[in-house]
């Protein structure tokens, strides 16, 4: 039964995992996302749905547990925050290389290094360009509310299985820690072993049931031509994602002269800026990428044909702005406004940045 609750983003993510019928969650505590595993443990997931929740000895172990479970056809997930996600880069590259469906959450905090536990959006490059080695991408969803922390679990798994790809939710400390109303979906039953055989038996390693040919999960391609072919297959997949599963939200862009591009917490703040700007007679709109990879190039290039400028607003020194620039490709000016270190930009300072952009 769907339910309206007041929850932290991290908790909503946890509850959504349970209701999605996830088979295994493997994680290691780190602020500001430890509530995910704490919530799952408190909910006795194994008793509720049979879902396994395991505290791993490290982030590296956790991502490799996800690899094992995902490779055997089980729905599996992990979560962490910036330094922990850095440790998972090799594992993520393996997951992408072996084409394994799974879900990861990064509740981003300020970096580099140990940094701060305050919210940040400075892991955008890592998530979208590939912090691990090789030419791979994850499908990256950026929730901007507690509701989306829950909803994107289902959406994420749908994509993960559609493309056989790891999916990341790129969130931040604000969204993870805040409570909001959230409508939690009905419980989906976990797939039975039989259903897994039927759905994933052609690739998943679950034993040679019925004496079928063996399945192999690997990301090793010793021969260059095979390796290149595999890479081309991955690239084709990314292209298809861009065509079919790119997501964004446009807010008051219809008549806008200027566009803020912002995701997650920054997008919420920028919405407030629209209001302030319009009060001052500035026709401002917001384009919120919901998927960071694939990046919503189509709507942005369309807007680039009719607006006067873009401002990328992000809690970082300038990462998202590069994708905006790549898309706009010089047609109009693209500026950046960012705060970092856990400082959340205020709608007023964003407005000032817009005014500066207009003046220039």
């Amino acid at each position, binding site marked *: 039964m769907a339910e*309206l609750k*007041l929850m932290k983003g991290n908790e909503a993510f946890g509850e959504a995992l349970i209701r999605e019928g996830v088979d295994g969650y493997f994680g290691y505590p780190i*602020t*500001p996302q430890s509530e995910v595993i704490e919530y799952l443990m408190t909910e006795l997931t194994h008793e509720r749905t049979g879902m396994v929740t395991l505290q791993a000895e490290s982030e590296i172990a956790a991502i490799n547990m996800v690899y094992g479970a995902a490779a055997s056809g089980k729905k599996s997930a992990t979560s962490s925050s910036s330094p922990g996600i850095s440790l998972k880069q090799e594992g993520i590259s393996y997951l992408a290389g072996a084409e394994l469906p799974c879900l990861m959450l990064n509740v981003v905090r300020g970096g580099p290094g140990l940094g*701060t*536990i305050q919210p940040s959006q400075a892991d955008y490059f890592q998530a979208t360009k590939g912090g691990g080695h090789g030419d791979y991408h994850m499908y990256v969803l950026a929730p901007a509310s507690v509701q989306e922390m829950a909803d994107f679990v289902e959406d994420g798994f749908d994509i993960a299985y559609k493309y056989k790809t790891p999916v990341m939710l790129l969130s931040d*400390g*604000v969204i993870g*820690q*805040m*409570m*909001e*109303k959230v409508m939690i979906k009905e419980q989906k039953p976990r797939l039975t072993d039989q259903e897994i055989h039927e759905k994933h038996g052609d690739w998943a390693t679950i034993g040679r049931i019925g004496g079928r040919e063996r399945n192999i999960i690997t990301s090793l391609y010793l021969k260059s031509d095979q390796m290149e072919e595999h890479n081309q297959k991955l690239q084709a997949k990314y292209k298809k994602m861009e065509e079919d599963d790119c997501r964004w939200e446009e807010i008051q862009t219809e008549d806008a002269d200027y566009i803020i591009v912002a995701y997650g*917490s920054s997008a*919420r*703040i*920028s*919405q*407030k800026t629209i209001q302030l700007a319009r009060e001052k007679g500035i026709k401002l709109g917001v384009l919120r990428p919901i998927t960071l990879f694939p990046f919503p190039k189509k709507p942005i290039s369309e807007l680039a044909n009719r607006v006067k400028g873009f401002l990328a607003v992000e809690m970082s020194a300038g990462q998202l702005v590069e994708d905006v620039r790549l898309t706009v490709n010089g047609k109009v000016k693209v500026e950046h406004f960012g705060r970092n270190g856990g400082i*959340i930009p*205020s*709608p007023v300072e964003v407005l000032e940045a817009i005014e500066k952009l207009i003046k220039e």
Partner: protein
Amino acid sequence: MTEELIIAGFGGQGVLSMGKILAYSGIMQDQEVSWMPSYGPEMRGGTANVTVIISDDRISSPVLTEFDTAIILNQQSMDKFEESVKPGGVLLYDPNGISKHPTRKDITIHSIEGASLAAEMGNTKIFNMIILGAYLEVKPLVKLENVILGLKKSLPERYHKLIPLNEEAIHKGMDNVKNL
């Protein structure tokens, strides 16, 4: 209507759960709410505070620098948040443990002897409900009945027997708040 509120004090004073009850109360009367804690440094001790927003409209930022109301429960929080009350706003505080009392003239200041009243009632755990009562008296934006509903929602079933006591504490707060 939009109420932007900060509740600030020590860890252990029930600051976060008071905010949660308020937020739930907002939901009970069909409003948008957000609850954003300061999740302090990854270490122990120190202050705790939570920003609660209750609004008829979609909430953009759950993190604020200025507030309609500040509920302040220790000196450190007074030092930090007195200045962040919007002109015309409300500051409600418990004088216990406060050495430098608020001095602003452009806001309304109320006090509530939460700690002493809780001690009087023989239960320090209801301290935050007394403060909540005082707030409801000063800013009756949320209906008491919705607060009770919110309380039910935010308390696990096994604690529901404590609701009458909590209600009593809320009334205590309502009755004892002083306008300075």
